């Protein structure tokens, strides 16, 4: 112990200290007005007024010939002289906002924000407050020194006169009768905070743009959700509500993550929860539109850090750390609730509540949040690429439909089948009529198989193969794009491991085939050349050939159970491929489809048939 004993005295400060701290706030008016809103909200909460009955008005009056511009915040609670003396006047009192009340909804932190906004951002500022029949006017003069207006300190006046002095006659028309009654009966009062001749009010920083920024300010958003906040600009009254942000398709969210109890950062183990402070949570949301396209709402593209007292920091995405997908993160916003940040032993809350105090705990938390944002953005990016691919494929399905249409119109399969198998099929069953293929098809069902001959138990025959329809003309579709004609699903999703030509069990009887658009080679062709390139068209053409070969092989096996390689080679592979390539070289439309590099997909309005059209070749630029 030292031999000296210090006797404590009240601190003495030069007013310049207020300038130093005040400058740290780097106010813009939206942020300052949000501070006033919080103070009004705290006043209502201390008076235990329900959210739906908390009416707050932000009134912005432009400069006129006789008066400077004026910003005001109005609530209907009011302060007593004693409250001003004991709570408002003290700088930096963390208990000022609560005023001894244990209310978790009190948002004021160090009790500085609103006062500093009055002091820093206006030539003069004051509040007129009326409570219990007494009017008090307290404010900052043009030397930024605060104090009462001695003419209006503890001044007993009637409500009507008080309202007149505060210039609230018009505002009174905007509040409900119940509140007016409370005011008239003296059960409540009012406060109007006024800043005159605001700084930085020029250019695009107009009252309307300030209000727009206030709507999306992190410190104000939660209040706007629950309280009755209106803006009055000149004569126009605007109810300030939080805009509902429609989510991005496929990422409706919200995406919730529990914060880990401990994070490792370097060699440090950082505690994010303990017996006193419960585990936190990160909630990410998405927007249908990127925030950068939404003007002032761009500031929503952030993560708000929230503690028990409300938002204690807010970070734009790029401020979180290494963001990998900038494009996708422009669609993300969220909120992280982490009460331990307010632990007085390791307080991470700054005076201005814009950013957290920089320390291991806050940095570890931000890095963890950044990882979660990156994960979500990665998923969105992958989906976006996939969507783009599907869209391209959708357009290219016109080409596939052309091939379907060409095959149908030219009766290619019918002719080929007749050529290989020599006309209509013979029945596969026994007994009865047997033989002749008298059901040889018409239309798309080509060449019935004579299965009507001798079905089980009929016409004296025994058990035959089940009745079969002749193989239908192939209906070829693109997987993951074209609709399912059977209506079992929206479309058929193929796996990259599925064969290039895929069929479900249900597709077989209907002659439906799916070109696997997810196969690695199909993807490669599309990625390298695009969906309108001749290579992609030829790829689809090849798959149509595969299908014809497949049909021919099965047809042959059905007719002749003992297939030989020579038969397949000669009768199927050689013949099918030769015939179709002959057609491709002779038929002008098919040739054009395969060789014309200037073909693009389009839908003809005519008979519903799909036709690719030739696009004009652009003249070379000079």
């Amino acid at each position, binding site marked *: 112990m030292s031999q000296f004993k210090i006797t404590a005295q009240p601190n003495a400060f030069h007013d310049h200290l207020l300038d130093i701290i005040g400058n740290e706030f780097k106010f813009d008016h939206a942020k300052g007005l949000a501070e006033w809103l919080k103070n009004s909200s705290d006043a209502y909460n201390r008076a235990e007024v329900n959210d739906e009955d908390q009416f707050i008005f932000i009134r912005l009056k432009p400069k006129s010939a006789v008066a400077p511009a004026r910003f005001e915040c109005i609530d209907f609670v009011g302060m007593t002289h004693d409250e001003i003396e004991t709570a408002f006047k003290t700088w930096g009192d963390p208990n000022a906002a609560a005023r001894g009340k244990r209310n978790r909804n009190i948002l004021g932190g160090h009790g500085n924000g609103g006062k500093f906004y009055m002091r820093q951002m206006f030539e003069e500022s004051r509040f007129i407050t009326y409570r219990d029949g007494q009017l008090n006017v307290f404010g900052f003069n043009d030397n930024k020194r605060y104090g009462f207006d001695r003419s209006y300190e503890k001044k007993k006046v009637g409500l009507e006169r008080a309202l007149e002095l505060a210039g609230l006659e018009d505002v009174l028309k905007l509040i409900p009768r119940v509140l007016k009654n409370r005011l008239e009966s003296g059960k409540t009062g009012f406060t109007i905070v006024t800043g005159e001749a605001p700084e930085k009010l020029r250019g695009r920083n107009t009252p309307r743009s300030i209000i727009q920024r206030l709507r999306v300010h992190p410190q104000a958003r939660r209040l706007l959700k629950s309280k009755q906040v209106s803006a009055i600009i000149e004569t126009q009254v605007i109810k300030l509500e939080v805009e509902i942000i429609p989510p991005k398709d496929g990422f409706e969210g919200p995406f919730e993550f529990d914060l880990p109890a401990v994070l490792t950062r370097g060699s440090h183990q950082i505690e994010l929860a303990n017996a006193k402070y419960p585990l936190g949570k990160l909630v990410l949301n998405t927007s249908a539109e990127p925030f950068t396209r939404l003007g002032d709402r761009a500031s929503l593209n952030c993560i708000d850090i929230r503690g028990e007292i409300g938002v204690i920091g807010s970070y734009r995405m790029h401020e979180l750390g290494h963001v990998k997908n900038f494009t996708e993160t422009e669609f993300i916003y969220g909120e992280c609730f982490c009460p331990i940040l307010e632990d007085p032993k390791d307080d991470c809350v700054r005076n201005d509540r814009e950013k957290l105090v920089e320390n291991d705990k806050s940095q570890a938390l931000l890095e963890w949040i950044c990882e979660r944002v990156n994960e979500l953005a990665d998923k969105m990016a992958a989906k976006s690429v996939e969507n783009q691919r599907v869209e391209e494929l959708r357009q290219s399905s016109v080409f596939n439909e052309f091939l379907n249409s060409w095959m149908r119109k030219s009766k290619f399969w019918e002719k080929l089948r007749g050529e290989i198998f020599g006309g209509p099929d*013979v029945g*596969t069953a*026994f*007994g009865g009529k047997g033989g002749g293929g008298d059901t040889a098809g018409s239309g798309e069902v080509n060449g019935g198989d004579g299965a009507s001959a001798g079905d*089980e138990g009929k016409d*004296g*025959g*025994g*058990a*035959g*193969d*089940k009745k079969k329809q002749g193989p239908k003309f192939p209906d070829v579709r693109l997987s993951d794009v074209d609709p399912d004609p059977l209506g079992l699903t929206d479309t058929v999703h193929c*796996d990259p*491991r*599925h*064969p290039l030509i*895929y*069929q*479900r*069990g*249900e*597709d*077989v009887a209907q002659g439906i085939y799916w070109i696997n658009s997810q196969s690695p080679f199909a993807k490669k062709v599309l990625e390298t050349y695009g969906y309108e390139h001749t290579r992609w068209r030829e790829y689809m053409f090849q798959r149509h050939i595969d299908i014809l070969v497949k049909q021919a092989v*099965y047809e042959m*096996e*059905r*007719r*002749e*159970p*003992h297939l030989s390689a020579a038969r397949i080679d000669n009768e199927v592979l050689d013949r099918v491929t030769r015939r179709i390539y002959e057609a491709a070289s002779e038929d002008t439309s098919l040739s054009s489809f395969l060789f014309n590099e200037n073909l693009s997909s389009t839908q003809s309005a005519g008979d519903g048939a799909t036709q690719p059209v030739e696009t004009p070749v652009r003249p070379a630029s000079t």
Partner: protein
Amino acid sequence: MDIPRPEKILVAMFQLSGGTNSPLEYEDIVVKSWQLFPDEFGLRKYVHQYPDSSDQHKPLYGPLKDKGYVLSGNKKFRLTEKGIGYAAELERAWKGLVPVAKALGAVDGSDRLSRDREAQLKRILGTDAFKLFAEGQKERILDTDFYTYLGVTVRTEKHEFQGQLKTVSDAVRDGARISDDPRHKLTADLHAFLVQKFKQIIERNRLPK
């Protein structure tokens, strides 16, 4: 103990094909069956003069195909590998070389893996389904892998599908029971997994009762 009627047709097919899987015409099977077993397959009242061509349809298209002994198409039939093995035992029983009961149980009761089952197991070990399962990636197994595992395709006719399912089930069961190869035990697990995962495909290929 007599050889059951469907099995007699297998004996006839075995003799006709010379123990191979060559395709056989229905009429030849009818006549051969009658020649070997006139009392069973002769025309009523003319048992020893004429065969009855209506008697072989149902066994051929029904139990013999469903159990994977026979394949058919376009009025022709052939024995499968499994059918050949079974028919060979049946022929020996018919000739009195082995008891009929033993021949009838030959397919299921042997303590040795038959050649056709060995072939099935060998084929299965080479499938993607087995490889993925062995590598712990069973969730990646697709419907098309299941078809390949069974040795069929999505277009395979229902009787043949059921026949092949039975053939593979028997082979897998015997492999797990008899073989020392640990992969054959794994195949049994794979089979149980696939049958559960693709029960809808099996259901779709179920034969009407």
